[in-house]
């Protein structure tokens, strides 16, 4: 039954445990009570015997003992629940009480032998009619010699009747108790497991591909409630990353399709009929541009997916940010030449941080490249570096097209480019800032932008200073 549901197993375990407990309990009760009853019978026999012996002693154990004396001294005899017998030293009956009537209850061999040794004996006997008796045989000795044997007996019938009733009650009541509690256990297990069923159904729907499903659990603080909320959190995160992946691949394919459409279209158009050499040249130039764009997208995508997988190796070393800023400024000056965009240095303080030089340079170049790309001709881009508390503050500011507040939240997203940016500069992949964000993150820093549309933007990078060597 390895397939049995938890509900069945719980109920069976519960039932078995209960049955064992009940059997143990019933057995103990039966044992204790039957033992108690017998002890009571034995005690009354002993008492009767001692009274009888005392009486016999008063008559000096003479054979002249008569029953009348006995009954006078021992009123319990009137109750008829006990009988007396006195045997001679050879084991023959010499006298017996009237209530024994004609029934023959001889002295057993065991009792006789024990009497010879001077020991009293308890016996339980049952005669043909089935009436059980309890017998006590006590030797009466005078000066080390066995004079006679006194036997006191009583019927065990009432005791036995009572024990039978008890047994009957236990045998009938226990199974009923077990069945009732099995039903109760089955019901309770079902109730306790119902939220699990709900979760299973929801999980099934989710497994079928509907990630918008959530589990609704009425109780929120118990084990099941916690399971449900953990489960919901997990699904929510899955849903988000699924959506991101889908969005990402859709965006990636769209961004790659555009240059493909252009190269295909331009080339086919050129081939439709003979053209001037100059036309061919233009087509080839355009195609080259698009091929460059595609390889840039592919490179950056590859970088980001390797970064996601944690496969980018970082070699951390002390980097002097101020000299890096100066180097990048030189490169930026060349980049901006075509459109008369000057890159100037503001405050540049000497600052050392721990970092990967290649990546930090890439970060700076990306920001400066954006600043130049999204600037108006004949404007300035400013680079500055200052220490603020225990952080290096790197700023890249421009007087370009800017980004509206609404769009600012999304510019670090992969492939996101504002419409104004698309219209302003066709070259661009929308991946640069996503890469910047990643680089800043692995350096435990932050990156932010302030911008007003049409007036310009400022990107601020904060990096922790190099930890002092202890």
């Amino acid at each position, binding site marked *: 039954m390895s397939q049995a549901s938890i509900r069945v197993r719980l109920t069976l375990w519960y039932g078995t445990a209960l049955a064992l407990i009940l059997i143990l309990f019933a057995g103990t009760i039966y044992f204790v009570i039957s033992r108690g009853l017998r002890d009571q019978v034995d005690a009354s026999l002993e008492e009767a015997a001692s009274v009888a012996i005392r009486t016999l002693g008063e008559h000096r154990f003479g054979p002249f003992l008569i029953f009348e004396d006995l009954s006078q001294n021992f009123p319990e005899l009137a109750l008829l629940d006990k009988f007396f017998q006195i045997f001679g030293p050879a084991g023959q009956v010499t006298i017996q009480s009237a209530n024994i009537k004609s029934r023959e209850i001889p002295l057993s061999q065991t009792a006789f032998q024990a009497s010879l040794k001077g020991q009293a004996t308890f016996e339980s006997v049952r005669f043909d009619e089935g009436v059980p008796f309890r017998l006590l045989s006590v030797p009466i000795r005078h000066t080390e010699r066995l004079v006679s044997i006194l036997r006191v007996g009583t019927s065990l019938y009432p005791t036995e009747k009572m024990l039978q009733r008890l047994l009957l009650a236990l045998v009938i009541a226990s199974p009923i108790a077990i069945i009732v509690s099995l039903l109760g256990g089955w019901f309770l297990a079902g109730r306790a497991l119902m939220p699990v069923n709900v979760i299973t159904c929801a999980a099934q729907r989710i497994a079928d591909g509907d990630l918008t499903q959530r589990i609704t659990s009425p109780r929120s603080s118990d084990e099941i409630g916690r399971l449900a909320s953990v489960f919901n959190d997990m699904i929510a995160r899955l849903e988000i990353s699924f959506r991101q992946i889908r969005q990402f691949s*859709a965006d990636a*394919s*769209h961004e790659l*399709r*555009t240059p*493909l*459409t*252009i190269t*295909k*279209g*331009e080339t*086919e*158009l050129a081939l*439709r*009929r003979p053209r001037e050499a100059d036309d061919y040249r233009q087509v080839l130039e*355009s195609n080259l541009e*698009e091929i460059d764009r595609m390889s840039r997208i592919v490179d950056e995508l590859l970088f980001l997916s390797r970064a996601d997988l944690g496969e980018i190796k970082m070699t951390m070393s002390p980097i002097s940010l101020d000299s890096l800023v100066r180097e990048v400024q030189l490169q930026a000056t060349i980049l901006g030449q075509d459109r008369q965009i000057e890159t100037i240095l503001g405050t540049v303080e000497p600052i050392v941080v721990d970092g990967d030089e290649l990546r930090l340079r890439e970060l700076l170049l990306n920001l400066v490249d954006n600043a130049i790309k999204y600037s108006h001709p004949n404007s300035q881009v400013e680079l500055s570096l200052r220490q603020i508390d225990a952080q290096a503050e790197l700023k890249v500011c421009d007087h370009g097209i800017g980004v509206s507040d609404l769009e600012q939240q999304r510019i670090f997203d992969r492939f996101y480019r504002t*419409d104004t940016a*698309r*219209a302003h500069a*066709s070259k661009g992949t929308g991946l640069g800032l996503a890469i910047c964000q990643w680089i800043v993150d692995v350096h435990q820093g932050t990156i932010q932008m302030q911008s007003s549309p049409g007036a310009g933007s400022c990107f601020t990078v904060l990096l922790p200073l190099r930890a002092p060597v202890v």
Partner: protein
Amino acid sequence: MRILVVEDEPKVASFIRRALEEESYAVDVCADGQQGQDWAQSIDYDLIVLDLMLPGIPGLELLKHIRKSGVKTPVMILTARSEVDQRVKGLDAGADDYLTKPFAIEELLARARALLRRAGGVPTGVLEVGDLVLNPVTREVTRGDQRIELTTKEYALLEYLMRNAGRVLTRPMITEHVWDLDFDTFTNVIDVYISYLRNKIDKGREQSLIQTVRGSGYVMRADV
């Protein structure tokens, strides 16, 4: 035949325009959704080529909007995504055809021809007026057994006249369907091109096919 191309990627728009112009269509290009919608509603285009990913108004919205306002011009949508979903939505919104980027130029032109033919109600594709025959696929024009060579503009004008044979076409109508937005309406360019056409088609023949309707415009007719 005048075509509106709504496409924000400048290079894509540029080669589509050149390809269509080589086929002697008049082409207007627009990179912004809002502007595209305004043009589509105010100018009687013969065909609209519409990219779905646009700044301003998304292509699908634009399409729904112009259809609601009663524009019946055939629309061919361009999608960058090959997802069935996008095409179905486009067709549901009132598009007549779709192309998935990247597409073959010849396919774009063939589909454009098919849409124009369907809209013009010409089933065979070959236009005939009297003994003058124009084949839009090969772009061959013959009168009798004689082949006639035409410039792109002349061809466009003739095709428009022949598609509307028997109907009087005013100068503004001709402007709208044969010339694009760069055309300067104050010149007498139309009259000049009509005279070029007459020279090539009607000169020295018994029957003149292009007739002037005084005060209104021109009409193409085989019977007098």
